[in-house]
């Protein structure tokens, strides 16, 4: 197969995964509107390229750690959409048994060590997972994705310095969607960018167009190769844009009028579609990919909707082995 064909088939795959993420989140938003999803959800619409490009460069046994905005990362790492949807609905068969919800999505079977409800907390946890891999002589690496807001919390410094000092196999990815909740990150962030911060801690890094899925995959692949070879930690700064509000119910009215409008055209899914069209892929094939993704997520939605609630006894399980308690007899 000539290279260009290979690239196109790869691009189609990436496109399809991005479509699956988009569809998953669209159904999740619908579910939140219908009160099927109960806790807050943070859609990553417009940011799918980072999830897909990064995970394409990883092995399944590599570790991935994510954020409150982690549906895309988790799906791209290989988690099951139905189990995820059930989790969002708080149902039995949810990926965390319905106990975690959207902000605590995790799938250890595919190396996905969790979203986190605490901004930046996963940075140190990722450094530790990489530390363990090194101690155990494994050639796994750990990848930690966090937002532009997270780089102002202490764990960013402590975790990056740690990884640098111990030369750990970890890739830090700042998925910079320019907003942290209702705050424009650059208004409260000193210095030029996260790459400079990483450099100052002895970590090499670079920036990439985070809406270009192939560019993300390429730079990640290169960094992962270096890291796996023992070169130590790296930081990737993926620039993207949060097309919707902070949560599914946030209308982002604080955003200057029109700011988001122009960005939809630059969204990674539109851009990839254009590439595919230009490469000769037919509209009908593209429609088929879309329909396929939508069908998968629709099925997950419908199935999650009719899934039973967890057993009440689950509330008492997996607390701890020593000193765990039984359901109250009241």
């Amino acid at each position, binding site marked *: 197969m000539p290279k260009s064909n290979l690239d196109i088939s790869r691009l189609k795959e990436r496109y399809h995964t991005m479509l699956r993420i988009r569809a998953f989140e669209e159904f999740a938003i619908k579910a939140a509107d219908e009160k099927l999803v109960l*806790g807050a959800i943070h859609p990553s619409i417009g940011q799918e390229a980072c999830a897909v490009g990064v995970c394409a460069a990883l092995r399944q046994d590599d570790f991935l750690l994510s954020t409150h905005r982690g549906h895309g990362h988790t799906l791209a790492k290989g988690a099951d959409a139905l189990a995820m949807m059930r989790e969002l609905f708080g149902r039995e068969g949810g990926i965390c048994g319905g106990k975690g919800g959207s902000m605590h999505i995790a799938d250890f079977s595919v190396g996905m060590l969790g979203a986190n409800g605490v901004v930046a907390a996963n940075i140190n946890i990722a450094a530790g997972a990489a530390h363990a891999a090194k101690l155990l002589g494994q050639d796994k690496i750990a990848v930690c994705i966090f937002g532009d807001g997270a780089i102002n919390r202490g764990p960013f410094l402590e975790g990056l310095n740690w990884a640098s000092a111990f030369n750990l196999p970890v890739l830090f990815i700042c998925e910079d969607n320019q907003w942290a909740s209702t705050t424009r990150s650059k208004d409260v962030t000193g210095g030029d960018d996260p790459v400079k911060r990483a450099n100052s801690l002895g970590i090499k890094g670079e920036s990439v167009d985070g809406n270009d899925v192939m560019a993300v995959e390429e730079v990640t692949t290169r960094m992962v190769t270096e890291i796996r070879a023992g070169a130590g930690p790296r930081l990737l700064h993926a620039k993207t844009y949060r097309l919707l509000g902070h949560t599914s119910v946030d209308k982002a009215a604080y955003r200057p009028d029109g700011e988001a409008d122009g960005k939809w055209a630059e969204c990674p899914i539109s851009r990839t579609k254009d590439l595919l069209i230009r490469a000769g892929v037919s509209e009908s094939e593209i429609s088929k990919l879309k329909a396929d993704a939508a069908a998968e997520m629709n099925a997950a939605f419908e199935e999650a909707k009719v899934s039973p609630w967890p057993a009440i006894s689950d509330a008492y399980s997996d607390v701890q082995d020593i000193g765990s308690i039984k359901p109250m007899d009241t």
Partner: protein
Amino acid sequence: MPTITYREAGKLAVQEAMQADPSVWCLGEDLGRGGVFGQYAGLETEFGDDRICSTPISEAAIMGAAVGAAMAGTRPIVEMRFADFALCAIDELVNQAAKARYMFGGQVKVPITVREPMGMWRSSAAQHSQSLEAWYTHIPGLVVVAPSTPADNYGLLSTSIKSDDPVVYMEHKNLWDVSGDVTLGQTLPLGKAHIAKHGGDVSVVTWSAQVHTALEAAEILATEGIEIEVIDLRSLWPWDEDTVAKSLAKTGRLVVCHEAVGVSGFGAEILATISERYFGLLKRPPIRVTAPRIPISYAPNLENEVKVTAKDISNAIRQMD
């Protein structure tokens, strides 16, 4: 006497304090847009972004800077967004704010009011739902407040901001939309409980959102002829031992209910103090109705399993006699 929400009552207290004293200011994430629960809505317009300071996501710096700014002559109101995130700033609160005055031999005070919205609310799961008020009562130097109504939120927050001590001020996320009458200018002392309902059969001590749950239980029980007295502590340190003891002298029966985990929750302190000092008043073993020692789940039925309901309270009370 306007009827306003718990949210608005808190805002009013802040607004009046800022109008009266230019050294009062607020710092926390997203405050310029009103804060994550809208409890600062409009204040930036009135006071400017210097005094309604929208910060980076840096809890340790938010709390630590407030400590320094308090030492340097201002009166910061610290917004922690969710009580759970205050765990990212515990050194600053416990090792610094609470101890500075003492360690420095009284050279300085640290007048900060730390707002920590707490409690379960809409399936927020284990990292966004905790009630850790008991922790703060264990720390010398801290005042701990947990208002249950709009009037109390107005009155207690006003007093807290004026106090020279570091105050951990815990609003309950599930109360933001609750409405009630608030009398302007009517501040409340810290350390004085409120008897939310009088009754002669059982003394039920509680605070924050559980006050409403206890009042529901009171209605159920009243239909059965059991009259409970619902004591809203309002502040947990200091707490109003006298009011509890007086009620107990009447009822001989003590129930403490709270949303937090029972083990080492503040209910333990109340039961312990009462058992030590007022043992003779207890006609029955005192009891706690509290959350089991398990994290809070996302799934609503599992989350409910942790909740103390009016049914739980009334069941427990029925079993007392």
